[in-house]
């Protein structure tokens, strides 16, 4: 018995030896992985670039990164994808940047996050790494969105603006021009639908799902009526009467069928697909939709036009919300110079030209909109340039996410008729005041 036991033990020990080596190797590898990349100076450094997947037939980012590596021997760039929706991306950053150790060096940011992240101290100050002349080449609204407390925290990369898509063939058929006011739009929808007698043809599509996109659509409605969401003193709905009018109009669109009932659950892609299948006269969306609508197999190819968003009675003009992406550097990156160099490279005119040419991601550099080579492939660029210049940013505040999260269910309640615009304006104000009680 005893003998058996000892042999067992010895066999065990002999077997354990190789096991221990394996364990040590694995532990060593894990330790190396945990410690990250080798320190700067010794051999090539690796930057991790976190960004959203670029939609479209080709992804230009990979090629651009290889080019950057060729220009900077000794730097390798690893590209990692972010989750799909903007809410999940924000959560990813919040969870991963709150802790100290960076899992990435360069990050793509939705414009609305820059002030929040800057205030949280998560971003590297880029003020001194970009000459003022270079900055002036970007749309001023994009630079404003990256500026917080007088310092620059990110560089503009991709530009976006809300605009109105219309079915040029249908408008032509009835001798109409793109609508300048929402009253015009309503009249045109009624006229065209009466003439077409097609039960499957909807009027005006936009984004009414309870998410960030709904806030953008509501902001545009407020601007169209000559008011806004937040004034300089941080007051929400500074002009309640006009805000209520604008919100009531959105509800009216759903209630009267000028917009199909499902816009209350619609995001950009749902509306883009329906419009792309020829099932609506008007669509509010971003410029990316144009390229998809003009694909060779698109049923509406060559039959789509773009125009500024219309205005309401009290508004001087309609304005699309600007949006888009910026590139920032993680405050605790181990390679600040290399990371800043990558940001400068990706936001350079050369890189933005590649992005704009390939998948029509609109540049933040204004000169590119007049670039003859780009314009031959994307004839809408001058029009988009004008619309972007006229566009307005969402409120540039570190509390934007809290504001949006508070407003989303309230605005949704207006659209589905559960609350009146008046109730929503009043309750949102009270709620926001409570949320921000510690912040002023």
């Amino acid at each position, binding site marked *: 018995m005893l003998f058996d036991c000892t042999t067992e033990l010895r066999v065990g020990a002999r077997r354990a030896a190789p096991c221990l080596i394996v364990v040590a190797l694995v532990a060593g590898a894990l330790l190396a992985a945990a410690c990250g990349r080798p320190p700067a100076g010794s051999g090539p450094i690796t930057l991790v670039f976190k960004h959203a997947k670029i939609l479209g037939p080709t992804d230009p980012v990979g090629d651009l990164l290889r080019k950057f590596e060729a220009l900077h021997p000794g730097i390798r760039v690893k590209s990692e994808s972010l989750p799909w929706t903007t809410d999940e991306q924000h959560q990813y950053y*919040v969870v991963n940047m709150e802790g100290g150790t960076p899992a990435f060096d360069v990050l793509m940011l939705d414009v609305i996050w820059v002030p929040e992240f800057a205030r*949280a101290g998560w971003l590297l100050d880029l003020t001194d790494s970009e000459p003022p002349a270079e900055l002036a080449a970007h749309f001023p609204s994009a630079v404003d969105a990256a500026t917080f407390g007088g310092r620059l925290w990110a560089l503009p990369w991709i530009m976006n603006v809300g605009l109105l898509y219309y079915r040029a063939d249908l408008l032509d058929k009835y001798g109409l021009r793109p609508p300048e006011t929402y009253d015009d739009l309503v009249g045109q929808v009624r006229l065209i639908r009466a003439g077409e007698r097609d039960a499957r043809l909807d009027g005006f599509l936009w984004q009414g*799902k309870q*998410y960030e996109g709904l806030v953008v659509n509501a902001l545009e409605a407020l601007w169209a009526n000559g008011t806004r969401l937040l004034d300089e003193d941080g007051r929400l709905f500074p002009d309640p009467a006009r805000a209520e009018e604008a919100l009531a109009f959105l509800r009216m669109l759903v209630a009267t069928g000028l917009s199909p009932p*499902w816009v209350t*659950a619609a995001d950009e892609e749902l509306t883009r697909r329906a419009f792309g299948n020829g099932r609506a006269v008007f669509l509010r969306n971003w410029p990316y939709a144009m390229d998809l609508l003009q694909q060779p197999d698109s049923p509406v190819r060559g039959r789509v036009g773009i125009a500024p968003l219309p205005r309401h009675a009290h508004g001087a003009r309609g304005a699309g919300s600007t949006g888009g992406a910026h590139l920032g550097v993680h405050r605790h990156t181990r390679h600040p110079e290399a990371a800043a160099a990558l940001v400068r490279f990706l936001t350079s005119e050369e890189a933005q030209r590649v992005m704009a040419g390939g998948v029509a991601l609109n540049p933040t550099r204004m000169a590119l909109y007049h670039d003859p080579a780009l314009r031959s492939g994307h004839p809408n660029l001058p029009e988009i340039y004008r619309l972007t210049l006229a566009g307005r940013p969402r409120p540039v505040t570190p509390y934007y996410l*809290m504001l949006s999260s508070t407003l989303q269910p309230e605005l949704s309640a207006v659209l*589905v008729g559960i609350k009146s615009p008046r109730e929503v304006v009043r309750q949102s104000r009270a709620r926001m005041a409570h949320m921000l009680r510690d*912040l002023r």
Partner: protein
Amino acid sequence: MKPGRHGDRRTALLFLSPALIVLAVVTVYPAIWLFWLSLQQRIPVFGIARFAGLDHYQFLTVDARFWNAAGVTVAFTAASVSIELVLGLFAALALRAQCNGRRLALSLLLLAWALPAVVTAKLFEWLYHPNAGLVNFVLGGRQLNWLGDPGLALPGLILADVWRTMPFVALLCYARLLGIPAEVYEAAQVDGAGRFAMLTRITLPLLRRVLLIALLFRTLDALRAFDLMFVLTAGGPAGTTETLTVYAYRTLFQTMQLGFGSAISVVVFLLVMATAWLYLRALGREEARA
């Protein structure tokens, strides 16, 4: 006798101690920490950290969004769990009565159960598509606005949840049914019992315990429901599908209000604990009777 018992007790505690320590570290400690957080106003992004006492709980009592979420959670739980139990029971009975293709039926049931909730949600997103969705097509080309109508969104989610978790109840019941000896039914038949009498007098009483266990698991799961509504409706329209966990998530992770979000989580925790306690007591009584 007595000292021996003492010794037994000590040995039992010794053997239990690893499990108790692990439980303490991974559940009790975070729960206490959560409660401590809920007594503070903490928004790290803005550098806010102060003691707030019961402020958050006080606000919850008047917070319309919270009460709405609580109502949605309870309605979702009651509806989905009761439908799942009834359907699961019938599916199990049907499975037992089935002679051919039982294995196939079981695999199909398991498939629905094994799919990650997010995949199920994406699946239903297409099924509910207003124009191209199968559900509206089957309903005769109607244009029901499943996810955008405040009256339909929650039923739509309940349907998806029932589809996903009914198999769990069915499999539990089926396993128990296999354990009921055929002689019991034969004896009942000899005594002249009809099909209905056999169901209510033999099958259901013998299934009581397993049904109670299924009820316990499903209720606790449903009270914490998150993934389906998060993916399908994001809580909309108008918050009609926002459960307490979705509200807690939005507060905690989207706007980083750690204190307030923790207070909502504490309420969810207490709700789940109270429900579990009630069920466990019922189960205990059941054991005592058996």
